[in-house]
């Protein structure tokens, strides 16, 4: 393993992707979902993946989480193989649907991952108490998920994802189904939680303002085949509600939007490179 040296000295980056490729076999032929993905995500860094439908951002997240095997390239999470990292619970996952178990109380839902890994009862309860406090749902510990609003359910899902104190949080449009007000509130909360836990976050979203508000870097992707077209660094300092009205916020939004439209010079270069590669393949 070439990463041996780095693991022994400094802690490895949260995610390291090199030349990741993913092809889905269809009944007839196949479709390239991801091509030539190189990305490094530092510890504690917040990175959003954004792009139109079908650009492979969810696929990329699932490749990082070892829910889908890549067809090529290397995926390292915490300096380990994605599979090892999954088995070691190095990451937590939150989906667009909260995906809570309706027959369990909120507390039992948060305890579920700990229960699955054989953590004893007392520890589980203490951890669940902490986490519910972190997401502000201590008063709802004994309720069942169907009695909670969508935003509250999503907060429970985030608490659950944080249960094993992962160094990495993978989130697939977790706020996609929420109304705008709840959504902004949840974003502020997430920035706080990520800061408090020191976890790196990979966040898939359709929303440009959401990506900009949350992230240290926004990874812009394009479809067919799914590739990274540009990485936009965002420097907004500490996020507050005022951040949303700051000129830099709008500047960053414009930058991401232009990258999405493919106006940026870097993107054009990439497209040319892609065409050249395609011609080479023919």
């Amino acid at each position, binding site marked *: 393993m070439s990463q041996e040296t780095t693991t022994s000295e400094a802690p490895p980056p949260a995610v390291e992707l090199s030349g990741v490729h993913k092809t889905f076999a269809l009944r007839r032929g196949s479709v390239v979902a991801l091509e030539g993905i190189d990305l490094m995500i530092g510890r504690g860094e917040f990175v959003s993946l954004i792009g139109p439908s079908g650009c492979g951002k969810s696929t990329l997240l699932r490749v990082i989480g070892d829910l889908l095997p890549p067809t090529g390239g290397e995926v390292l999470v915490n300096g380990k193989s994605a599979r090892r990292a999954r088995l070691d619970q190095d990451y937590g996952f939150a989906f667009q649907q909260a995906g809570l178990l*309706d027959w369990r109380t909120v507390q039992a839902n948060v305890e579920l991952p700990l229960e699955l890994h054989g953590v004893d009862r007392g520890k589980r309860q203490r951890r669940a108490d902490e986490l519910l406090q972190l997401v502000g749902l201590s008063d709802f510990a004994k309720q069942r998920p*169907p009695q909670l609003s969508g935003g509250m359910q999503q907060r429970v899902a985030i608490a659950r994802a944080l249960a094993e104190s992962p160094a990495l949080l993978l989130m697939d449009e977790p706020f996609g189904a929420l109304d705008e007000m709840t959504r902004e509130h949840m974003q502020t909360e997430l920035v706080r939680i990520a800061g408090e836990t020191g976890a790196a976050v990979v966040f898939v979203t359709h929303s440009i303002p959401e990506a900009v508000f949350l992230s240290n870097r926004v990874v812009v992707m394009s479809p067919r085949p799914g590739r990274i077209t540009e990485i936009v660094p965002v420097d907004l300092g500490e996020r507050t509600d005022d951040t949303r009205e700051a000129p830099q916020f709008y500047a960053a939004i414009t930058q991401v939007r232009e990258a999405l439209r493919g106006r940026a010079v870097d993107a054009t270069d990439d497209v040319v490179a892609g065409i050249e590669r395609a011609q080479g393949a023919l």
Partner: protein
Amino acid sequence: MTTGVNAHPRFAGQQHRLRLRLGRWAGRGLLVLVGLVVLGAIWEAYKSWGPADGVSVFGARVLPRTSDEAMPHLSTIWHAFGAQEVGGAITLGPTKTVLDSVVSAAWHTLRWAGLGFAIGVTVGFLLALLMDRLAVFERALLPYVVLSQTVPLIALAPLVSKWGQGWSVGPFTWERSTSVSIIAAYLAFFPVAVGMTRGLKSPSAVHAEYFRCCAAGWWKTLIRLKLPSSVPFLIPALRLAAAAAVVGSIVAEISIGLEGGIGRLILEYSQQATGDPSRVYAAVIGAAVLGLLAAAIVTAVDFALWRYHRGTGAR
């Protein structure tokens, strides 16, 4: 302590939910009673005002004759329960009434059906687990599971009885009633196998992915996700299985010729029916009550597992 503050409203909430559920069930019970009364009223009304020769369409009678032989008054059936058993029907002694015979026969059948139900549910459950664990089994087994139900029971019953005859393992000996239970099980396993197979597949993709994220193996996923999610599929399957076990027992008793059960009693009463048709109805009512009892047992299971129903509370 937060628990102290939370305990009260939570307790009250649960009590409230329980009361709501009990209320709903009481309402349902009342509806069943009303249904019975209406049914009885229709019976008597048709008997009083229906055409004496019944209603025929193209020579086939679709509604029965209204004579006392075909449709005895409800009161006659009621009195039949109290009538003295004629010697020869079932050797119970001269002091027994029809009610005694019916209750005793129903009790026997219930026990045989109960054993059959237990075996059937276990087998169906294990089959479903096997098919869930290995997809190969599902492709290989499911057609046969379906096929098994197309074999006519009447043909199967004597065969099973013959196969089992004289067979014994340790303290267990194959009685003739064991054949009845096996045939009940043969009918009862089917809905459970099919229902559980679907139930085990019912968790949504998000849940399946989440458990994979947690690196939960097959067993843990089964216990904490698949079994709880399959409860809404299991309950109707159990209800069908219970009814099938009762019907299976009755048919098996008749085709094997085993005495002491309700099936045999119906047969005997109908053979002497020329004299007193109300006894046949008495025995049929006994069988119906048996079916209701089986359904009630499943309902109790249903009640105990309410937590696992879909959409608990308001969404």
